[in-house]
């Protein structure tokens, strides 16, 4: 049986944030329908993605098991490179999370109505990316069950963490970020969970959605407090997101290592984070809107806006690279100058030039609307930027450490298969969570789309007592 949902949706083009003709009823049907439709009608690509992501996730299982059994020596980390893949991947994942908060919080404060269709989705991405990020410092400890030692609590050893260290700042920053992202996402979901509760056909669905909907009934007083709380959360998350990657960059910038000890790191890390985050939003949104026929809600306008933001932030990142080069020359410091020479011509030069290609050169194609509004090309650029941002962290961590002040202590870093297994595994885990999310929860904020519909229909502002209302489902 073919339902309306199985039919192709039509993208209204780069001018509209939502296709014409939607009403409160149909928009609810459409978004809730993705979740509530019978399991047999789930698109084939969804199952394939879930299967592949699940297989990739086993890399994390195996990698974490072997690491805990043998110790951190199974990774390629060795003096002088004590921070290998674990830190590269940690920074990469945290950065990916940043676009979610940017979309949901900063664009909320800037009243950008195009954020509505993608904010839920991007917040989930944030949450799942931060969860992957957290895995790396924990595993890097080698004894993750002692992770609570990092927290300030009275203990029989009489020890306390050192709050002057950026590594301890990081513990607070990342755990705060995870908590705030979680509650922001959940609070945004509550009214939609109530919709799901009321629309669900099976009793178990009603009960499950009902429990998480907390008995939400849409009271005007509740909405007033809700909106205030949501706005304040957005206002709090905005400086938070900037602080998190700033603190992450302090892990590097506060040290003495050439290539790390620079004041440009905080803004340059934040820009890089947003850059990779938007790339990941595009990488995930493009297939999702196709599988579930959401082109009329996640329109070319959204993809185009993400692409433009990516281009803009990418230019800030490019400026950061130029400044690094300039400062290493301008400092007149032989170690700084050598660092840059080693980066661009040393043993890891191939990766450095790949980074320039991926992060600076290829994304310049986004100046052209022919790339921004062409789905396969845009998807390609988003993948390239994801890889580029990973390479950036690799270059920062590895090339700075492997040749520092004393040539006698130089060395090389080679990741082992277990490094790759854990990286692949977290990508798999992240994708499993995302793929499940788009199927079991409304991946677009339904109530906010209703608000957009209301604002887009000025004729509805007339006293609608007599005229037939466009809000009526037909």
């Amino acid at each position, binding site marked *: 049986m073919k339902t309306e949902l199985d039919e192709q949706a039509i993208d209204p083009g780069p001018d509209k944030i939502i296709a014409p003709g939607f009403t409160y009823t149909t928009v609810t049907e459409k978004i809730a329908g993705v979740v509530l439709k019978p399991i047999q009608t789930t698109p084939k690509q969804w199952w394939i993605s879930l299967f592949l992501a699940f297989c990739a996730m086993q890399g994390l299982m195996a990698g974490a098991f072997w690491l805990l059994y043998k110790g951190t020596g199974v990774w390629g980390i060795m003096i002088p490179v004590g921070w290998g893949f674990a830190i590269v991947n940690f920074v990469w994942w945290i950065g990916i999370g940043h676009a979610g908060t940017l979309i949901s919080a900063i664009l909320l404060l800037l009243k950008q109505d195009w954020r509505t269709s993608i904010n839920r989705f991007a917040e989930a991405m944030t949450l799942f990316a931060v969860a992957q990020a957290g895995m790396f410092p924990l595993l890097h400890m080698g004894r993750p069950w002692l992770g609570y030692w990092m927290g300030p609590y009275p203990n029989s050893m009489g020890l306390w963490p050192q709050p*002057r260290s950026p590594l*301890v700042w990081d513990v*607070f920053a990342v755990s705060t970020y995870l*908590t705030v992202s979680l509650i922001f996402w959940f609070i945004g979901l509550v009214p939609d969970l109530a919709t799901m509760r*009321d629309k669900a056909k099976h009793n178990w669905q009603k009960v499950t959605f009902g429990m998480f909907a907390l008995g939400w009934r*849409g009271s005007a007083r509740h909405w007033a407090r809700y909106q205030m709380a949501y706005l304040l959360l957005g206002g709090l998350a905005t400086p938070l997101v900037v602080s998190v990657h700033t603190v992450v960059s302090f892990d590097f910038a506060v040290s003495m290592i050439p290539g790390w000890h620079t004041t440009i790191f905080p803004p340059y890390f934040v820009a890089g984070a947003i850059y990779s985050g938007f790339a990941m939003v595009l990488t995930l949104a493009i297939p999702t809107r196709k599988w579930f026929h959401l082109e009329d809600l996640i329109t070319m306008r959204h993809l185009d806006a993400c692409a433009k933001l990516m281009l803009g932030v990418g230019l800030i990142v490019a400026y950061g690279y130029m400044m690094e080069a300039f400062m290493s020359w301008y400092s007149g410091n032989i170690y700084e100058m050598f660092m840059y020479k080693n980066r661009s011509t040393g043993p890891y030069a191939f990766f450095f030039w790949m980074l320039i290609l991926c992060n600076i050169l290829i994304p310049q194609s986004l100046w052209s609307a022919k790339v921004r509004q062409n789905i396969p090309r845009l998807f390609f650029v988003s993948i390239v930027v994801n890889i580029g941002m990973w390479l950036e962290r690799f270059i920062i961590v590895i090339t700075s450490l492997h040749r520092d002040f004393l040539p006698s202590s130089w060395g090389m870093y080679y990741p082992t298969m277990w490094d790759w297994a854990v990286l692949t595994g977290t990508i798999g885990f992240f994708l499993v969570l995302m793929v499940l999310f788009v199927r079991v929860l409304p991946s677009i904020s339904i109530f906010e789309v209703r608000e957009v519909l209301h604002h887009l229909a000025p004729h509805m502002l007339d006293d609608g007592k007599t005229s037939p209302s466009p809000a009526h489902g037909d």
Partner: protein
Amino acid sequence: MTETFWDRHGLYGLMAQFETPEQVVSAAQRAYDAGYRKMDAYSPMPVEGLAEAIGFKRNWVSLVVLIGGLTGCVGGFGLLWWICVIAYPHNVGGRPFDSWPAFIPITFECTVLLAALSSVVGMLAMNKLPMPYHPVFNVTEFAQRASIDRFFLCIEANDPKFDRDKTKAFLLELNPEEVSEVDK
């Protein structure tokens, strides 16, 4: 205190159903002007002016968040100061124990954390959520559509001006799609 007629008969209130947000706002306004106070409006998305129309005046959420944020700020800084100066004084390169600039990042994170948690907990607590049971869901149309595409105004039976017949007649004047009795 004597039990009223409606307590015995378990009527929670009378509920009118509307098609558009504008209708429910003007209905709420008229009900307020007619002297009703114990009432609530329900909508599937936030509607501007609706809370004000039913007489919602002071939004305390921001105050709760301010208190939460200040608590986090003072608590976070106090914790770090106590660790570094009292509990575990640690001489790092001859710098003072109370090296406050180094405490700022964690103080900031604690401020944001407590402010964010208090905004959510405060909002839910003031809304008396989670609430497993509420009489308005006894109206079938409400349970099916209030979170989707219909707007409701419910005048509650404990309003001093409430009278089953007069209030019903009043609600019918507002051109609703339907007026239903809400059982307790």
